[in-house]
């Protein structure tokens, strides 16, 4: 799958985009966030408080309950501030 990080999530994780093999025990956006949090200090910081994060699956806003599959494009970012 493809992981994307934007705004301060990108800054904290230190990367904007990566190819990622979905672990077998990760079935939802929330489980993916939990998994990423354990990857190291930058990720721990970025994913510390999920209430401050939003996610998209295949470029559609998605809740943390939404399912993820290998092959999906999953993005994490703060609430948007466009316009």
């Amino acid at each position: 799958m493809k992981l994307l990080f934007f705004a301060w999530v990108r800054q904290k994780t230190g990367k904007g985009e990566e190819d990622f093999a979905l672990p077998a025990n990760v079935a939802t956006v929330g489980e993916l966030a939990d998994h990423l949090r354990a990857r190291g200090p930058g990720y721990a910081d970025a994913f510390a408080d999920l209430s401050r994060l939003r996610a998209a699956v295949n470029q559609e806003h998605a809740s943390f309950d939404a399912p993820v599959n290998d092959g999906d494009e999953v993005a994490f970012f703060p609430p948007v501030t466009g316009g």
Partner: protein
Amino acid sequence: MKTRIKIQTEPFDLGPELEELSQGAGALATFAGHVRGDDGTDTLILEHYPGMAEREIARHVDEAARRWPLLGVTVIHRTGELKPGERIVLVAVAAGHRREAFCACEFLMDHLKTTAAFWKQERRGGETRWVETKTSDDDAAARWK
């Protein structure tokens, strides 16, 4: 309906965009947003999610066209580094009558603020911070529900 959605780093002028869109339309309502400098911001840095940002905007344009009879919509959003006074966004709606043009234009701006995949940083005297979501923007979008 003529739909034109552009996300770009280059500045743009209102004249050519609006003159073309207004062809054959009774009513043209537009909104242009500019970087404000009154709070000491010296640079605004915009980042977007390429692909998703365009899709979100296109979805809101479709929803607006379902709600009101529209003839054309142009949305241009800049990204990258912008200085005070520079134009960030243009939403322009052509329709037969003024009421639907105004409604659709406001609807699109309200949704652009709250759901399109853009993020802003403000640089002020060497310090850079991420702009947080405004409750007033969420409230503005919620009134269309």
